[in-house]
C-alpha cells in the first residue's frame, strides 16, 4: 500500500467510525425512549417527544456496557452532559464531549478513589490560601462536583428561570463563564471557579483519556486531532518530514502481549 493509499484508508475508517457513532444507539439518534433509562440516553431532550412505551426497552441497542452510572443520579448526569458539551462542543471537527461520553467518564472518576481524594494530603487545618498556594478545601472532589451541579441549576433559575440543561447554548455559556470567573457562591467558602476548573479538567480527560475509562468514545477524541493513541513505536514517523496520520489504538491493543 502506498503512503497515499494508506492515508486515505485511514481517513475512510475514521469517517465511517464517526458515521457509526452518529447513527448508532450509543447516542440514540433514532430510537427515543421513556422512563428513567430513556431520559438518560436522549440526545436532545428538547427536540423530541418522549415515547413511554416500555416495550422499546427491550429493543435498546446498548452496545457499550461502560454506559451506566456508578455515581450520578440521572438528572445529575444530564446536567453534566450539558455542561461538558459547552466546554468541548460539537463542531466541524466532530462530536462534542457529550457524544464522546465525557459525562460517563466523569461519573466513573467521581465514583472511584480520585473522587474521594484518597491520594491527597487531608490532614491538618484548612486555611484560606494565597493565590500561589493552590486550593485548600476540605470538600472532596465528588462533593465539590455535586455542589457545582446544584449551583449551576440554582444560578440558571435565578438568571433565566430554567434549569441549566434547559437553557440555550449561549445562556449555558454565560452561566459557565460566571462560574469560571468566581461570580457565584457555591458551597460554604468554596469558589465557583474551583468547581469550574474541576469540570474543565474532567471534560478534557473524558475526551482524551483511554476509552477504557468510559469516555473518548470509539477513540474519536483522538482521531479528531490525529493522535494515534498508545502505539508502541514511532521510529519511522518521527524521522519523516511529512506528517503521517495513523489510526488510533487503545490500551486494549496491548492485551495478550
Amino acid at each position, binding site marked *: 500500500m502506498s503512503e497515499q493509499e494508506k492515508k486515505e484508508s485511514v481517513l475512510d475508517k475514521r469517517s465511517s467510525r464517526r458515521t457509526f457513532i452518529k447513527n448508532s444507539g450509543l447516542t440514540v439518534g433514532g430510537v427515543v425512549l421513556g422512563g428513567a433509562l430513556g431520559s438518560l440516553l436522549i440526545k436532545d431532550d428538547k427536540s423530541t417527544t418522549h415515547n413511554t412505551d416500555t416495550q422499546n426497552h427491550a429493543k435498546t441497542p446498548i452496545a457499550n456496557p461502560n454506559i451506566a452510572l456508578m455515581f450520578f443520579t440521572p438528572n445529575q448526569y444530564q446536567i453534566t452532559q450539558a455542561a461538558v458539551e459547552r*466546554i468541548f*462542543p460539537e463542531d466541524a471537527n466532530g462530536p462534542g464531549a457529550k457524544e464522546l461520553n465525557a459525562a460517563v467518564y466523569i461519573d466513573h472518576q467521581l465514583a472511584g478513589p*480520585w473522587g474521594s481524594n484518597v491520594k491527597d494530603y487531608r490532614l*491538618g487545618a484548612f486555611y484560606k490560601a494565597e493565590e*500561589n498556594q*493552590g486550593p485548600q478545601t476540605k470538600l472532596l472532589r465528588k462533593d465539590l462536583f455535586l455542589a457545582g451541579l446544584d449551583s449551576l441549576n440554582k444560578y440558571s433559575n435565578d438568571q433565566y428561570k430554567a434549569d441549566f440543561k434547559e437553557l440555550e447554548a449561549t445562556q449555558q455559556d454565560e452561566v459557565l463563564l460566571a462560574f469560571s470567573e468566581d461570580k457565584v457562591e457555591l458551597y460554604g467558602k468554596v469558589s465557583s471557579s474551583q468547581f469550574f476548573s474541576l469540570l474543565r479538567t474532567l471534560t478534557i480527560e473524558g475526551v*482524551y483519556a483511554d476509552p477504557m475509562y468510559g469516555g473518548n468514545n470509539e477513540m474519536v477524541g483522538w482521531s479528531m486531532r490525529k493522535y494515534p493513541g498508545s502505539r508502541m513505536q*514511532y521510529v519511522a514517523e*518521527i524521522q519523516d518530514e511529512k506528517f*503521517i496520520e495513523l489510526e488510533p489504538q487503545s490500551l486494549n491493543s496491548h492485551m495478550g502481549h
Partner: protein
Amino acid sequence: MVTKLPKVPVVVVGMGWAGGIVSAELTKAGISVVGLERGKDRTTADYAMGHDELRYQHRQELMQDLSKETITYRNTVSGKALPMRHYGTFIVGDGVGGAGSHWNGQTYRFLPYDFEIRTKTIERYGIEKIPAWMEGLNDWGITYDEMEPYYDTFEKMAGISGETVELWGKRTNPYPTPPLVKTQLMKEFEKAATSFGYKPFVIPAANLSESYTNPDGISRGACQYCAYCENFGCEYGAKGDPAVTVIPVAKQTGKLDLRTHSNVLELTKSGGKADGVIYVDMLTGEKFEQPADVVVVASYVFNNSRLLLNSGIGTPYDPKTGKGTIGKNYCYQVTAGGSQLFFEDREFNLYGGAGALGIEIAEYMGDNFDHAEVDFLHGAGIRSTQYGDRPIAVNRVPAGTPAWGAEFKEKSIKYANSNFPVKTQGASLPHKENYLDLDPEFKDEFGYPLLRMTYEYTDNDRAMGKYMSAITRKFAEEIGADIIDTNEVQAPFNVNKDGNTHNTGGVIMGTDPEKSALNTYLQMWEAENVFVLGASAFPHNSCFNPTGTLGALSYRAAEGIQKYLKEGGLLVKA
C-alpha cells in the same frame, strides 16, 4: 513497639539513582547493604499498560502518596505555609527506581563554571557582581576536572547518548552511544541556530539511541520514540532507570538486602554519629530499628533535609542569621523567556518523541557569554524538545484563546500538530531567604513535621528570563512561525502550576563546615558516618536537568563510603 535488628555495615535510605548506584558499587566490592525503599519493587513488567496518560501522568501512578506526606509552601519568610494537598509542580517518585523511573532522561554535565562559580565570577567581574542576597553562592569544593571521571562512569553505566559540545568541559571519552535522531522540528531549530552562527547539539539522553551493553554487563534495547517517558516507566528498559541498571546488579551480588514498603522515619544518633535508622513497614505498620556503621540518606531532595531535621542531625539553617546549613540554598529551575510557535499550514509528527529528544545551544549557558553589561549571573540553554504531545496534558493555543468552549476546541485541534516551543532552561542561584525547614504546624501520617519550603523567584531569574526571551523570539522569527507568543515575564512561583520538578539544595556540599553540610564525598561534617546523596547536595542548580550530576556525585560518594569503612574519620579536612 520497635523491633531492633542486627547491625549491618551500611543502610541506604531510598532506592532511586543515588541509593541504587551506592548499593551496586558497595555490594560489588563485597560490602553488605540493607536498602530501604518506602514504595514497591518494580521491573519493566510493571509497565505493560504503561501508555496510559491518565493513570501515570494525571493520577501520578509512580509518585509518592501525598495523603501520607507532602510539603508545605509559602512565597516569603513572613507568610504562612500551607500544604501542597495534591500534585502541581513537583512530582516525587516512589518505589524502586524512585524519580529515576519516571524521569525524562535528559542527562547533562554541569559546566566547569558551575563548580567554581564564586571564584570565576569574582575573577571576571569583581565581587560586586554578586548581590548581597546571593551570599550563599559558593564554589562546590571540587572542580570539573575532578568530577569528569565520575560523569564518565555514570554515562557508561546508563548508556547516555549524545554528541561532544565545545562549550562544555572537556571529555575524556565520547558519549557511549550516538545521539538520538533529529526530527523535523529539531531540524528547523538547527537551521535557525546555524544561521545565527551558534553550534546546536542534540540533547544528551538516557533514552538509548541503540542497543547497548554497559560495563556491568547489563544489555538494553534502543528507544522506540513511543513518547511515554515523563511520568512513565519504560516498558522496553530503553530509558536508563535504576530498576533496569544498578539495582539488578546489586541484587545479583547477593549482598543487597532490599526491603520495600519500608519508610524511614528518623535516624538515631549518639556522640556525633548516627547509630542507624527507625523505619516502618508501610503495609503492616510494624516498626524496626536498623543499626548500621554507615547511614546513606538517598531519598528525594525534600525528604533528605526533612529526615536530618526530624532526627536532630546537623544544624538547621536560619535565614535571619545565615548560620546553620540544613535546609540552606534550596534552588529550583528557571524556565521563563520561552516562545511558542504556531503554524497555519505545517504539521509535525508530535505524537512521537522521547523524554530527552531535543536540540539546544550552549552559547547562553553559564558564563559562556559576557555578563558585564547584564544584571544577572549564569544563563540558560535555548532549546526545542519533542517529548511527544499527549492530548490531556498538551493543548497549546495562541495567546488570547479562551480556555474552553467552541474557540478553544477549534484552535486546540487546529494546532495540535502545528506548534512547537523554543524554550529556555535556566540556572537557579541561591537566595538567602529561599530555604527548607520544618513546618511548625502540619505533620505527616506518623506525626512527624512536614518539610516547609519558602521560595520565590529572584531578581536574577526575572532579568535572565527577559534577556532569554529576546533570543527565543529571534529563533521563532527565523524559523518563520505564523504566530509567536513570547513570555517575557517571570510570574511569581505557584506551587500548583509551575511546570518543573528540578529541586536542588538543602544539604549542600562545600569546603567550609560553616557554610556547607557536606564535604565533596557527600559526608556530613557534623556526623561522619552519615552520607547524604542526591541533588540536595548541589550548592546551586545549573541550567540543566540535575540527574547527570547527581549520578556522578553518587559514584564519588560510593568511593568515599568504602574509604570511610576502612579508615574512618572525615575524608576531607575542613
